[in-house]
């Protein structure tokens, strides 16, 4: 055997692919797509507050989203670009989560008879469950209020009439309950996610870490208060057609 023989060099893929193949890389992707999805959640939530200004306002808001870019881009093209970006982020987020979950289940060598966790929180421990609930809800929510596909959507669905569609949908008690459950799951999910993403992105500092917790708590509180107000407002008759 010669000692000069070189070990075969493994083909190196372009670095984003190399990076994503690793678990640390997947966590980076989870965090970055998490930022994108969080941004969407916040924008969507703030936009929806227009419901309280009346049907005119929210319907114009919906129209404005389709008109994003004004005369600079063909109608709905910028909205579609955003939607495709969001869809890509969601797909990557779910794929990375699925793949990491599989890795971690394999890595776990049996359960302890007794295990007294100190740092693990309800939120950090249920990310897979809350994430799945949110994902299922997103499908329903799209069918209900975007595509207007029965039976998810109410009978009287009319494309473009955001206000009436929403009120008609939330007047159905099971839908309102599902919405509340899904948003509570979302709140728990982003409570751990918001704190955790800074760690995954390598952004941590003793002086800054307390603000990561505060930001997570603030976002969670905002999602719970604002998002849950919509079905409650419809059910109590504050928002009506």
């Amino acid at each position, binding site marked *: 055997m010669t000692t000069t023989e070189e070990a075969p060099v493994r083909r190196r893929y*372009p670095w984003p692919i190399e990076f994503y193949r690793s*678990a640390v890389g997947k966590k980076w992707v989870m965090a970055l797509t998490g930022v994108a999805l969080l941004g969407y959640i916040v924008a969507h939530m703030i936009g929806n507050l227009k419901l309280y200004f009346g049907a005119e306002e929210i319907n114009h808001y919906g129209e404005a989203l389709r008109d994003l870019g004004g005369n600079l881009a063909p109608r709905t093209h910028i909205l579609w670009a955003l939607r495709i970006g969001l869809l890509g982020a969601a797909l990557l987020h779910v794929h990375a989560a699925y793949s990491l979950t599989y890795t971690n289940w394999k890595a776990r060598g049996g359960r302890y008879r007794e295990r007294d966790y100190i740092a693990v929180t309800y939120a950090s421990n249920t990310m897979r469950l809350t994430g799945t609930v949110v994902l299922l809800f997103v499908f329903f929510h799209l069918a209900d209020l975007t595509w207007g596909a029965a039976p998810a959507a109410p009978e009287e669905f009319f494309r473009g009439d955001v206000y009436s569609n929403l009120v008609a949908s939330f007047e159905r008690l099971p839908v309102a309950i599902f919405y509340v459950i899904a948003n509570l799951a979302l709140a728990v999910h982003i409570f751990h996610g918001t704190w955790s993403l800074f760690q995954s992105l390598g952004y941590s500092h003793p002086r800054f870490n307390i603000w990561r917790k505060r930001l997570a708590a603030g976002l969670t509180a905002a999602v719970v208060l604002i998002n849950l107000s919509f079905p409650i407002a419809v059910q109590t008759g504050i928002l009506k057609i």
Partner: protein
Amino acid sequence: MDLTLRVWRQHGPNQPGAFEEYAAPDIRSHVSFLEMLDIVNDRLSLEDREPIAFEHDCREGICGMCGVMINGQPHGPQQGTATCQLHMRKFRDGDVITIEPWRATGFPVLRDLVVDRSALDRIIEAGGYITVDTGSAPDANLVPVPQEAAEASMDAAACIGCGACVAACPNSAAQLFTAAKLAHLNLLPQGQPERFMRTEAMVDTMESFFGSCTNHAECEEACPKQISIDFIALLNRDYIKAKWRNGRLAGQR
């Protein structure tokens, strides 16, 4: 005090194991946890029964061998110490104490409470070193080390490689161990030439044995040296740079 131990007994690797109960009467509260096990083992030997196998060496919290899961907590209920530094005064008369080996696919059980932690050695072999010119001793202080870097590096270097972070992690990730070993060298001037080769090699080796970090922070609580998960953030930062830079270097050949 009189105690009851519930101990995992397993004859060898890949063999089925089970919990067995042992009465441990008349234990003085000032003996250490390992001395308590010694006493129990002496009694078992006198009765011609197989003593409980557990790992130990320095018994002063620096060798990292004695880690076991005690009542569901790595290294037991006392924070910031290894099993050997735990004393029986932390328990009460009549307590039932459950003692389990670390459980992770990367740490196969060898016997009873002893696990094979050589996966951690594989991670060190992959890059946990620096290359220096040997020969006559260099002049002192030839390489200036910033005070902040020295302090942070020493905090990371406190890691004794006991594996409690892996044992504590719901994903059996070895992130805190690897992050500590990386930060120990990556923060110092002497560690710079191999910084990114080291980071990629050690993280990739780690991932071939262990799970992935989901930021529960349970490892930080379990660590007998209380190493901060902030070092894991440094690992994440260095790893993305390493993939980028090492890829570029490979392209220059």
